[in-house]
């Protein structure tokens, strides 16, 4: 097996909550990301799903080095990502690019598309010499399905789907190895969403990209991902292949999440099992003791409040199986539950 492109271990990001203006003091921490580990292989898509506030976007920001992690390590091609600075950091940023959710605010309205897509070359002139830039930009526009003749247009002259394509072209400009996609299609209408998802799929096979694909839409994530991680309140509660997560979910939260997603087929109405969670996600500033999901879990017992379940490969019934491969879940009572989706 080849070495993963990205190896993340025990990544933690806490944001301090402060009080007072002059004598500012920290009165607590929002535990946005609280001990997350995963590997990302070359050419693979890791889907990260979870509800608002689960820390998936903070995870993206820390990985992009837009936020400093509180603790934890991340190795990019074997080298510590967080220790890099100066030229090394610039080189890292060439290898890892990002596509953001909102195509309306992530493009500068006063720059032309040519400037936006060509801007990465200003910072990394070694990738494309100046005289070659315009041609490269037009090539990129063509790759993402935009008219290369539109190079002098401004973002407002494009629709939402087209703007997202501009964002993707910008991310591709430096031929990165990893692209972090933070909810790239959630602002788009379904017919346009499908176009952009197909584009992301094509680009991946063409350029051998690895994606970290963050989304709240479980259907979208299943469609694009090879492996999926489910997050809840800053922790990964279950990871596995797309098939393991969707067909054999083990963690009660994954099961409830899958059961809550409406399936576009009226024939399945009243035939699917419904698991309805009560209440809302607790505040990440004050997460519950033990298992963080226990306050909404229908299977919670005393043990769940006392002891935090680790993300480990488990047999039915939750017992940890140290020898098994691949499908870890963080529940004391993990149990396969194959009939949630259909």
């Amino acid at each position, binding site marked *: 097996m080849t070495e993963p492109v990205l190896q993340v271990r025990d990544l933690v990001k806490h944001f301090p909550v402060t009080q007072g203006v002059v004598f500012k003091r920290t009165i607590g921490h929002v535990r946005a990301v609280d001990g997350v580990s995963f590997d990302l292989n070359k050419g693979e898509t890791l889907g990260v799903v979870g*509800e*608002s506030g689960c820390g998936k976007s903070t995870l993206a920001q820390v990985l992009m080095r837009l936020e400093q992690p509180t603790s934890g390590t991340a190795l990019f091609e074997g080298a510590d990502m967080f220790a890099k600075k100066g030229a090394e950091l610039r080189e890292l940023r060439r290898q890892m690019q990002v596509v953001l959710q909102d195509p309306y605010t992530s493009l500068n309205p006063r720059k032309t598309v040519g400037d936006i897509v060509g801007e990465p070359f200003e910072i990394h002139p070694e990738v494309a010499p100046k005289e070659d830039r315009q041609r490269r930009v037009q090539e990129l526009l063509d790759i993402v399905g935009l008219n290369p003749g539109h190079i002098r247009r401004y973002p407002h002259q494009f*629709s939402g*789907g087209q703007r997202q394509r501009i964002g993707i072209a910008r991310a591709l400009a430096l031929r990165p190895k990893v692209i972090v996609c933070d909810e790239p299609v959630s602002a788009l*209408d*379904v*017919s*346009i*969403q*499908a*176009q952009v*998802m*197909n584009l992301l*799929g094509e680009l991946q096979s063409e350029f051998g990209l690895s994606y970290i694909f963050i989304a*709240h*839409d*479980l*259907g*979208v994530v*299943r*469609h*694009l991902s090879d492996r999926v991680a489910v997050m809840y309140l800053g922790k990964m509660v279950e990871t596995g292949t*797309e*098939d393991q997560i*969707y067909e054999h979910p083990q963690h009660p939260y994954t099961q*409830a*999440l*899958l*059961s*809550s*997603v*409406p*399936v*576009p*087929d*009226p*024939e*399945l*109405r009243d035939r699917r099992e*419904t698991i*309805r*969670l*009560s*209440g*809302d*996600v607790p505040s990440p500033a004050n997460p519950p003791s033990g298992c963080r999901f226990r306050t909404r879990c229908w299977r919670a017992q005393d043990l769940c409040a006392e002891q935090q379940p680790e993300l480990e490969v488990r047999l039915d019934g939750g017992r940890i199986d140290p020898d098994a491969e691949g499908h870890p879940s963080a529940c004391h009572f993990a149990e396969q539950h194959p009939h949630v*989706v*259909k």
Partner: protein
Amino acid sequence: MSTKDEKAGGSPESRLLEVDDLHVEFRSREETAHVLNGVSYHVDAGETLAVLGESGSGKSVTAQTVMGILDTPPGHVTGGSIRYRGEEMLSATEQRRRELRGENTAMIFQDALSALNPVFTVGFQIAEQFRFRRGMSRKDAMAKAVEMLDMVQIPNAGQRVKEFPHQFSGGMRQRAMIAMSLALDPDLLIADEPTTALDVTVQAQIMDLLDELRRERDMGLVLITHDLGVVAEVADRIVVMYAGRIMEQADAHSLYSQPGHPYTEGLMESIPRLDMKGHELASIKGLPPNPSDTPPGCPFHPRCHRAEDECREKRPELHDLGAGRLSACHFAEELISRD
């Protein structure tokens, strides 16, 4: 036109709302956008009608016109009729419309935080209706507000009425807005993307609640959404809108098993499904038309894979396909008779 579909419709007494050939324009100095170009649908008591469409299809404008809350200007109703229990709304006085709003028809919105007033407590905002419309005392009205919050399953309602909207979570705010809309016991509720801003687990709770309340009160529910999943779970009947027109109307089962319009078909094929994997998504190419410059013929023809010369020249009328189904496609009969 709504008289044709006897099967889908109920008796005249149960018919709550009839929208007939509604035309709305948005005028600005530079241009006139034809936002609604002849929209017709009806809702009966106790049924859920889903209005499905993408951004700009006119689904929300229709609802706003029905409720009489369309901003004029820029909006102008240029034709058609809206009848509530047979009574014409478009020519009714503002006073009469006001009487009906809340009392008979009510609406909830996508963004509950901006729909609620941030400087009054949730309880005050619900109680207000009982005080001014029912002439209750402050105390009685507040007691009713607690009752309403209790009905929408907000825990500890007695305490919660005293809180402000920002102290509520997203799902709770949506519940509070539902409580507010149902306070005067309307028989028609229009829900405009009620769960779009919510997480799936909360969305499921809210949809269950709406469905339960509709059943209990034998209410007509118009559910406006772009989410084909939500529609499949709750709708009895569905109208699909595109470019300010109805493209198709059918009961939920027929629409999903055999769409009668290429646009509906395209939508179905572009959703990534939870229960399937690996198929290439058949996206609809291109973009929806600009409402101030819609193409001649069928408004969908530039994006349609079946389009022929006829579609470019002649606008297909919304016609009856039998069994309560309507479609605005020249080839609808072919589409629904496929195996």
